[in-house]
Each structure stands twice: as structure tokens, then as C-alpha cells.
């Protein structure tokens, strides 16, 4: 089975200037990949390049074609001043499938209703998007991505700015969506503790350290891998079935490119 998306020996960046070079990774069917690193570290650039939304500076981009993708941007990047109802926002997820001129039909509206039901916001269909809470907006954007019946769900910092309860609820929802097996997930986050209980694969990204390292969750949560990302000693403990990731006072090796 071919990977859903791959980057081979890729250089990624903007305006011809590479932020990171030698990037290799692939997303297999059923995977849950979390791309972790500091703000401005190049996480989103790598993912958007892998999706084809940004040009590849060098290397190869591959994967399954055609591939149905659902994309969830950072919530703050979507201007809530637009007077859309939540249902209209979710219906937009069908636009790329329809192509120009064709109008959404009954099937598209049914897909919208199903997607909203999957994330439990059916009751918000006629509510103004701008009036929703942060968590409800996030669920609306996830429902929009699901409305395209995607094979791959890509989320950019989906829990940014949320309180702990809303953050936990969003991550549990993603686990639930992924657990069905038909949906692979790629999630960008600057907080490792946010994804350590959910992802199967981790990628550490920091352009300032020229760091890109990817591996299975268990191997990436080892102290030497964590030190490469954070430049200090980071401990991982389990408490009541949940992993906790936290820095300690010990010193660690500053990360170097793999």
C-alpha cells in the first residue's frame, strides 16, 4: 500500500530560501503523525509543502493520487467577521469536490449534516460562526474538513488558545475520529504534552537548530530525542494512564541535525 504523502530529501521554505533541508518522511494509511516544535520552527511549512500548497525547493514529493484531504487551519486564521452560519462553513468543505459552476445539492447537505453530527455540533447548524466559542469554532472547522469524506485529516495547531478542558475534548475527538481506522491524521502542535497521548508517530522540527527528526512515538519520547528538540533535559512520566512531559533542572545536549 503506497504512503498517503511522502517527502524525500526535501528542502522547504519560502521565496526560494530553504528553512530546512534533507527532510524525509511519509504518512502511512492509519497513521497519526504529530509534527512538534517551537512556534515559527517550520512545522506548518513542512506540512503545507507536503500537501502541495507550497512549492518544493528541492527533493521529491509523492504519495497517493488522488487523495482526499481535509484541512483544518489555525482557528485564528479564519476571520469570524464573515456572516456565515456554522452549516454554511461546513458546506464549504464540499467546494473542492464539486468543481466550478456546480452548486451544492442534497447529497452535499447530507454530508454536511453527517460531518456536524460526527463532531456533535448538529445543533449549531444555524448559529452564526462568529458567535460560537473557540471550541465550537474548532469543531466547525473539523466538521468542514470531514465533510469532504477525507482519507487524510491535517490540522494546524487545533488546540491553540484553548482552556485545558476544551483542549482535552478536542484531542479526545481527534482520537475518536482516528480510531475508526479509515482516517489518517497529521497534526501540527508546538506543545508535545498535547500530542504525547494521541500520536503514533512524532516529528520534531526546529529550523533554528536545523532539526528534523521523525520516528515512532516510543523512540521519540526517549530523553536523547527530547533533548535534541528542547535543548535541556525533559522527563516523561505516566500518571493514571496519561503521559506527562515536563522539563527538569538537569542539562541536556543541544540538538543537532540528524
Amino acid at each position, binding site marked *: 500500500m503506497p504512503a498517503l504523502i511522502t517527502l524525500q530529501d526535501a528542502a522547504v521554505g519560502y521565496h526560494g530560501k530553504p528553512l530546512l533541508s534533507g527532510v524525509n518522511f511519509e504518512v502511512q494509511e492509519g497513521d497519526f503523525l504529530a509534527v512538534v516544535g517551537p512556534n515559527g520552527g517550520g512545522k506548518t511549512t513542512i506540512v*503545507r509543502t507536503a*500537501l*502541495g*500548497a507550497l512549492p518544493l525547493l528541492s527533493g521529491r514529493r509523492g504519495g497517493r493520487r488522488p487523495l482526499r*484531504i481535509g*484541512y*483544518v*487551519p489555525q482557528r485564528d*486564521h*479564519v*476571520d469570524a*467577521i*464573515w*456572516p*456565515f*452560519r456554522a452549516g*454554511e*462553513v461546513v458546506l*464549504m468543505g464540499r*467546494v*473542492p469536490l*464539486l468543481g*466550478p*459552476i456546480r*452548486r*451544492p445539492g442534497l447529497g452535499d447537505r447530507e454530508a454536511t449534516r453527517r460531518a456536524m453530527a460526527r463532531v456533535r455540533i448538529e445543533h449549531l447548524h444555524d448559529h*452564526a460562526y462568529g*458567535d460560537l466559542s473557540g471550541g465550537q469554532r474548532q469543531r466547525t472547522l473539523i466538521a*468542514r474538513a470531514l465533510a*469532504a469524506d477525507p482519507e487524510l485529516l*491535517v490540522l494546524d495547531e487545533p488546540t491553540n488558545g484553548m482552556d485545558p478542558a476544551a483542549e482535552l475534548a478536542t484531542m479526545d475527538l481527534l482520537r475518536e475520529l482516528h480510531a475508526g481506522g479509515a482516517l489518517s491524521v497529521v497534526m501540527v502542535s508546538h506543545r508535545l504534552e498535547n500530542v504525547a497521548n494521541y500520536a503514533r508517530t512524532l516529528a520534531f522540527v526546529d529550523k533554528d537548530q536545523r532539526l528534523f527528526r521523525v520516528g515512532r512515538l516510543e523512540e521519540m519520547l526517549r530523553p536523547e530525542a527530547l533533548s535534541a528538540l528542547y535543548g535541556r533535559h525533559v522527563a516523561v512520566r505516566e500518571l493514571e494512564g496519561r503521559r506527562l512531559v515536563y522539563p527538569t533542572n538537569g542539562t541536556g545536549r543541544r540538538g543537532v541535525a540528524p
Partner: protein
Amino acid sequence: MNGFNEFVSAREIWQVPLTASILAGALLGALGVFVVLRRTVFVSAALTQLSTVGLVLALLVHERLRIESESTSSQLVVAIAFSVAGALVLGAFRSRRLPAEAAVGGVWVAASALVVLGVSRLLVHEAHDLGGMVFGNAVAVPLPDLVVIGGVALLCLVLHALFAKELAFVSFDPETALALGMNVSFWDGLLFLTIGLAIPVTARALGALPVFAFLTLPAGAALLARARFRSAFLVAAILGMVAAGGGYVLSWIWELPTGATMVALAGLLLLPGAMVKRG
């Protein structure tokens, strides 16, 4: 009632200009929904100045090189070319290295300076002609100008009806549209092409200030009144028609400047929406 009776009896004089004003009000009002929601209201001011640069250039070419460019149609073509080029650069393909408002402000002030410099080199009577073209004269709009406004309005209506969902999606969330493989630059270009076409043809009839006002105030009033996205176009178009038509009639009856009366009425239309409570 005397003024109103005089107005009615002068029907042959105002039929074409009033129709042009109402049509322009509807067109600009509807397009204004995108202009306001995309936070690009000052683009229209810059585009009006750019189309004026085109007009000045056309007149200078005629005057200095004795090349025929004084006819209404050739001036309009030059004004449209400048406006559309500006719309595509400022709206669709803007630089990521400069904040949008800096680019818009820069173009506006540079175009304004070019207009002043160009006018200073024109003969007096042609400079006077330019004033009519730039600031509009809704009291006397010739029939060909009405036909052009109607043609542009029809084109915009067709394009926006056919590609409504694409224009809405890429305007609302360009990042996601791009990630899903949509050609955001193309759809942005199409949207700003319609805006770039509408501005010079309506500015010739109404003037720069009413065009700027109609691209902003009716849409603002519709959004303040909590109109939903699709109905906002209809509400803004109707408000634009009311402000343009009502302003024209009132200016005739009360002997006021036409463009300024239209703008003042459009401003008053914001009040009902401003009083609507969020809920």
C-alpha cells in the same frame, strides 16, 4: 411639492442619469460585501486614483503627440486598464513582504501625485474636462455610459452567480482553499477583475467619492443589520439603489450637490443596522 413637480416634468433630462445611478448603486453595493469583508475598502480609493492616472495619460497623449485618444471610449479603455491592473496587483497578487494597507496607501498617494503632475501639464480646457470625468456628474450621464455600466453589471452578475462558492471560499479561508488544491490566485484575480471593471465605469458617472461610498456603506449597513452572507448581497444592492436613486432625487429637489447627497444618504442607511443588538 413645487420642486418635486419640476423634477417629474423634467423626466427626459434625468431618465438616463437616474437609471445609471441606481444601477451603479446596486452593482457597487453588492461588490462592496466582498470589499468590506476582505478588509480592502481603501483599495477602491486607490483604484479610482489609478484610473484617473489613465485618463490624464490619455489626455496628455492626445495633446502632446496628436494621437487620437480623446474619445470617450478610448479614455474609458485606458481608465479600465489602469484600474484592472491595479486591482490585480493590490487585491489578488499583493506582496507578502508589505502590509496590504501600506501597498494601498502607497499606490493612492503616488497615483494622486501623478494626477496633479499630469494635470499641471494639460491645457486648461482639458484639465476642466478631466474634473468632470474624475469627480463625475451624475446630473448628465450620456446613454453610452449607461450601456457600459449595464454591460459591466451584467458581466459581474454572471461571474459572481457562476462562481459564488469559489469566490466565497477563497475569500473566507484562502489558507484552506490553497491546501485543498484550489487556485486561490486565479479566483482572487477574478474577484478583483470585477471590482477593477466596476470602479472606472461607475466613477465616470457618479464620481470618485460616491464610488468609494457605495463600495463601503451599503455593505456595512447590511452587515450591521446582521444579514447573512448570501442575503447581504441583495440587501447591500437594494441599499445602494436607495442611496443612489434617493440621493439623486433629493439633490435635484433641494438643489444640492448630487454625489455628496448620495453619500450622505448612504451614510444614514448605516443607522438602522447600528441599532440592531447582537443576540
